[in-house]
């Protein structure tokens, strides 16, 4: 096994992408994810890869569309305002069914906002920020090691299902340095017989379906069938922390979930039975597991760095059967464990 080394989240992500076979990166700088393009610009030429600093995020996402249409393992990264600019392209890529890994290290919004960590892009990521009926796979890691593991998985899944896969982190995860164990360099042998680079007869990759009349409907039904099968396949990505036999359960993801754990440790020392349920895949959402665990608790708490976005999906899973109390931080503010501890104490 490779040894534990210290790496910044953004750099760990970039190295993991390369080891997962990414040879094409297109991006435009924005804090707090600048270490991704910086690392890629140095590292990709060493592995005969291609790095392009695009003229904008619109260009980046459309370059990804092109590289994906060729069957390449390709990636772009940005932060909230840049990801907003990419939504049209993500919709096109979803319609055309090409692979793409998209990284969003979220920052405070709306608008240009600030550069501090946030979780305000939850709806945009999991409900689709672009037009049309589409879904993308969204992973929300909570450590540098998970960033590595889920980036590697993201490339395998985007090739397997030909659906965009998003790594949804935040400024803290991107900027924090932690020990990681990197995987070995992967030998890639993807079946890309569907791509425009298969070198035989004509292949058309498109998202426009005008004739015959029902062709777009049939295409959409095909996409929905694919989404249902992905929901079935990817239902195991969540973490439970002291979640068995508790009276109270906290729901949180990413950075916020980590901070909740510190508060849970303190509360448990006072014999308060409290645990954490942390979805790692935000779409597909681990709904079944949440439904089943919701029946065993008295009350749920939601913590997120956004206004009741993630909470909405928890509420949909709970179907009003148990009380849910949400706590939010907005505009780049972050929770600390003392605050979470106090809020729980006051509300149980």
């Amino acid at each position, binding site marked *: 096994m490779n040894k*534990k*080394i*210290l790496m910044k989240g953004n750099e760990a992500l970039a190295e993991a992408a390369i080891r997962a076979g990414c040879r094409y990166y297109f991006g435009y700088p924005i*804090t*707090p994810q600048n270490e991704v393009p910086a690392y890629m610009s140095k590292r990709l030429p060493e592995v005969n890869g291609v790095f392009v600093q695009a003229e904008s995020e619109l260009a980046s996402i459309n370059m990804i569309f092109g590289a994906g249409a060729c069957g390449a393992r390709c990636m772009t990264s940005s932060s909230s305002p840049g990801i907003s600019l990419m939504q049209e392209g993500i919709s096109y890529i979803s319609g055309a069914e090409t692979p793409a890994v998209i990284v969003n290290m979220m920052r405070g919004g709306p608008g240009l906002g600030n*550069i*501090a960590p946030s979780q305000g892009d939850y709806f945009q990521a999991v409900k689709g920020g672009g037009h049309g009926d589409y879904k993308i796979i969204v992973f929300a890691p909570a450590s540098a090691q998970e960033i590595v593991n889920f980036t590697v998985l993201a490339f395998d899944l985007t090739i397997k299902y030909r659906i965009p896969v998003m790594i949804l982190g935040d*400024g*803290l995860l991107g*900027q*924090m*340095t*932690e*020990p990681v164990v990197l995987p070995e360099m992967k030998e890639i042998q993807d079946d890309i017989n569907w791509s425009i680079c298969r070198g035989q007869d004509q292949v058309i990759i498109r998202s426009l379906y005008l004739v015959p009349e029902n062709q777009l409907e049939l295409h959409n039904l095909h996409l929905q069938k694919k989404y249902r099968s992905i929901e079935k396949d990817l239902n195991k990505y969540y973490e439970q922390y002291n979640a068995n036999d508790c009276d109270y359960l906290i729901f949180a993801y990413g950075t916020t979930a*980590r*901070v*909740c*754990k*510190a508060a849970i*440790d303190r509360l448990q020392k006072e014999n308060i039975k409290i645990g954490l349920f942390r979805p790692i895949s935000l779409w597909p959402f681990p709904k079944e597991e949440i439904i089943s665990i919701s029946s065993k608790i008295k009350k749920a708490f939601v913590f997120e760095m956004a206004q009741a976005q993630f909470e909405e999906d928890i509420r949909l899973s709970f179907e009003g059967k148990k009380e849910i109390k949400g706590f939010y931080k907005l505009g780049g503010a*972050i*929770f*600390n*464990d*003392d*605050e979470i501890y106090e809020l729980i104490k006051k509300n149980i």
Partner: protein
Amino acid sequence: MTNKIILAGFGGQGIILSGLLLAQAALLEGNEVTHYPAYGAEMRGGTCNCSVVISDKEISSPIVNKPDILLLFNQPSKNKFEAKCIPGAKVLINNSLINEQALRNDISSFYIDATNTANKLGNIKIANMIMLGALSKITGIVKLDSLINAMPEILSARNKKLIDLNVQALKEGYGLF
């Protein structure tokens, strides 16, 4: 055992780098570590800080609200962070640039003439290593040898020629207490 440390000073004093060196040294000793820098509109001469958490078990929160160890490199940092640390905290103060005495009597303050000592050694930039050397001696959270061994992992290739000078500064700081 978990230590929550904040290092703070001017941009350019090597705050982020010394935080990384501390984290790397703690990792070499088999600990879990996190390092989280303030990454706002930091610039040379502006204020700058980073949080380092060192623990023998998995670290949940990398965010340090109430530090138990503080390394203060300049006056604005003292003004900002001294009030935040827990009672009994160990506070290392670069008194080359910080004049005031401790405002609290429930913390242990240690005064280190880091910037002046660095100047005497010939490079003002190694004040951070003098502080880290003192930290090792005062708190024992990492061994001096671990800091020295961590150096090649943290310094960028173009600065490898400065390892000897930095090691000298670590030892100098260690010897002050």
